[in-house]
């Protein structure tokens, strides 16, 4: 325990330098702005803001990115409440009651509830990260290639099976990611693979370029369909961004209740904020004395999912930082950005660079405080930006994406890849193919193959290596179970759908 406190102190010393503190503030602000843009979620937001971190030292970069992450989550809620347009899946639930509250003239209270619930949920989750991050890293440190392979495979199957009812399409997404990740020089043998004779592909496809394309560019393509939309925002009607004593009495218990469950779900690979906030919402509705108020502007319907959302997004930092395996699209983007800065997140990070790992954890506390202090009084002004027309925003987003891409490798060939992946992401959205499995595979594909082959070398080519290691076997079994279970669920629901259709005919 003393260790933990000493480390945390080290972290605060690192995070509280004037430069880092300044970037927490700037990052939170920028994050709020991009998160608020209609249709732009945290993953896209971080992707287009990556260039900001160029030229920073790794600690500052990571701190800034975390700040952007929180800011974007918070900004997403503003969009949900004010214009009923969630930035990403995790703030859909906030629309249910948040937008209704705004319609009833309680926008200020809804925004305050969102800020307060996010703050409390985030702070509790941060405290849990402090306790759990180091042990998670120590466990992961003992993992050999076989265990790592099994764990990554489990993370990937989880990402696929949790993409609701899209098991097969999720697999396609994952496989395409693995194919793209295998392009370039094979790390083990030095053989060139699938470069199609192009020298520029020798080092493989830069996954950040692919990610920016798949998220940001495809988002803009989608936005073209609604380029003439202008949202009407009446910021005067927001009123005071505060809650009453009665409100507080109603929401504090749901907030505290929703946080721990959301935290543990957030640690699991594949589960993003969307699922946890929905779970928190439905649980609270079941526990509520007047469940019929939910969906009509119940303040608890804003508080619980917002707390859960923030708790799970904070928790998802653990697998990213301590094991090197992102558990959501957003943390995957962060991981990619870090690797580009030369930081390899994973168990060794806590050993070799405790100042980075703990600096980030400390900065999460600071980020939460900054956000609540900054945003509560400023929300009415920030919300005005929602009235910015799409026809101005879309070009800006696309230019930022191109700029960021160029500055990564100073290569204009990347523009070609960016456009290619933008089109691919757009096609995937049109085909209802989930994008997170693709991103996960792009980032971890190499490691998956490498660990597999290393494990095979150690056992001279026998698959029994996975059988002999209990941890590896457990993860493989979990992966298999989750696949089989979701196959079973698929069968059941499609059988149900078929009977419904027949009944209608």
């Amino acid at each position: 325990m003393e260790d933990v406190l000493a480390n945390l102190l080290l972290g605060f010393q690192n995070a509280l330098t004037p430069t880092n503190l300044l970037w927490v503030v700037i990052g939170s602000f920028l994050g709020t702005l991009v998160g608020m843009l209609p249709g732009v979620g945290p993953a896209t937001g971080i992707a287009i803001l990556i260039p900001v971190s160029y030229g920073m030292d790794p600690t500052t970069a990571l701190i800034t990115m975390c700040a952007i992450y929180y800011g974007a989550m918070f900004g997403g809620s503003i969009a949900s409440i004010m214009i009923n347009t969630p930035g990403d899946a995790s703030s859909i639930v906030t629309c249910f009651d948040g937008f209704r509250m705004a319609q009833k003239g309680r926008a200020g209270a809804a925004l305050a509830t969102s800020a307060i619930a996010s703050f409390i949920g985030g702070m509790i989750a941060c405290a849990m990260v402090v306790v759990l991050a180091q042990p998670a890293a120590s466990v992961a440190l003992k993992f050999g290639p076989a265990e790592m392979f099994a764990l990554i495979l489990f993370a990937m199957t989880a990402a696929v099976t949790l993409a609701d009812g899209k098991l097969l399409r999720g697999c396609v997404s994952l496989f395409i990611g693995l194919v793209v990740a295998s392009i370039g020089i094979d790390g083990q043998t030095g053989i060139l693979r699938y470069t199609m004779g192009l020298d520029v592909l020798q080092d493989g496809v830069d996954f950040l370029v692919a990610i920016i394309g798949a998220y940001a560019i495809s988002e803009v393509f989608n936005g073209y369909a609604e380029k003439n939309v202008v949202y009407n925002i009446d910021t005067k009607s927001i009123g005071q961004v505060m809650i009453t004593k009665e409100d507080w009495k109603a929401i504090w218990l749901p907030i505290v209740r929703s946080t721990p469950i959301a935290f543990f779900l957030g640690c699991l690979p594949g589960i993003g904020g969307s699922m946890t906030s929905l779970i928190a919402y439905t649980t609270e509705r079941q526990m509520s004395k007047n469940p019929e108020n939910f969906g009509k502007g119940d303040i608890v319907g804003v508080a619980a999912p917002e707390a859960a959302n923030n708790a799970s997004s904070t928790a998802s930092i653990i697998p990213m930082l301590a094991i090197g395996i992102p558990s959501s699209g957003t943390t995957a983007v962060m991981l990619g950005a870090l690797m580009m800065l030369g930081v390899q997140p994973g168990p060794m990070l806590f050993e070799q660079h405790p100042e980075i790992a703990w600096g980030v954890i400390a900065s999460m506390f600071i980020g939460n405080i900054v956000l609540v202090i900054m945003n509560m009084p400023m929300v009415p002004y920030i919300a005005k930006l929602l009235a910015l027309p799409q026809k101005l925003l879309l070009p800006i987003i696309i230019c930022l994406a191109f700029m960021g891409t160029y500055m990564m490798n100073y290569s204009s060939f990347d523009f070609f890849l960016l456009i290619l992946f933008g089109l691919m992401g757009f096609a995937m959205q049109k085909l209802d193919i989930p994008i997170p499995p693709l991103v996960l595979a792009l980032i971890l594909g190499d490691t998956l193959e490498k660990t597999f082959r290393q494990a095979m070398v150690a056992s001279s080519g026998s698959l029994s290596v996975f059988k002999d290691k209990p941890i590896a076997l457990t993860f493989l079994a979990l992966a298999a179970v989750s696949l089989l279970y979701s196959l079973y669920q698929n069968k059941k629901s499609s059988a149900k759908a078929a009977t419904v259709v027949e009944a209608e005919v």
Partner: protein
Amino acid sequence: MAITKNKVTGLVSLVIGVVYFFATRNLPESAVADPIGPKAFPTMVAVGMIAVGLLLVLKRERVTPKNKAVLFDLTTEKDLMKDIGFTCAAGLIYGLILEPVGYLISTLLFMNAMMFVTNGRRIVYNLSVGLVFSLTTYGLFFYVLDVSLPRGILAF
């Protein structure tokens, strides 16, 4: 002819899987001692893609007037396709001129092309947005973040 999203996805997976499978077979043998070599893992991925593709293509789906959402149809969105095509072309040209012409001018042009897509021919408005954007970002990166960008013909 109507085709479902599942079928399209399945076909894509099948085609990539087959191409990938043969590309993998054509890889050179490894000279380094490696029990499974550089082909084994991609082969597994290829087989997986083909299997999933087949499952999706062969999946029986009933198309009723009520579940149009499962259908794949882009023909209704001609304008959108045009905008996207224009953006892609502009992006490629941006890539070609960025280094020779320099960041400021090429970004101004690219931004104007994008504004043309969303805002039409309001030239003065578009130009001013482009100018403000390219100047601010250049200044921000060059002076604040210390990242240099190509100057091109404006080098002095």
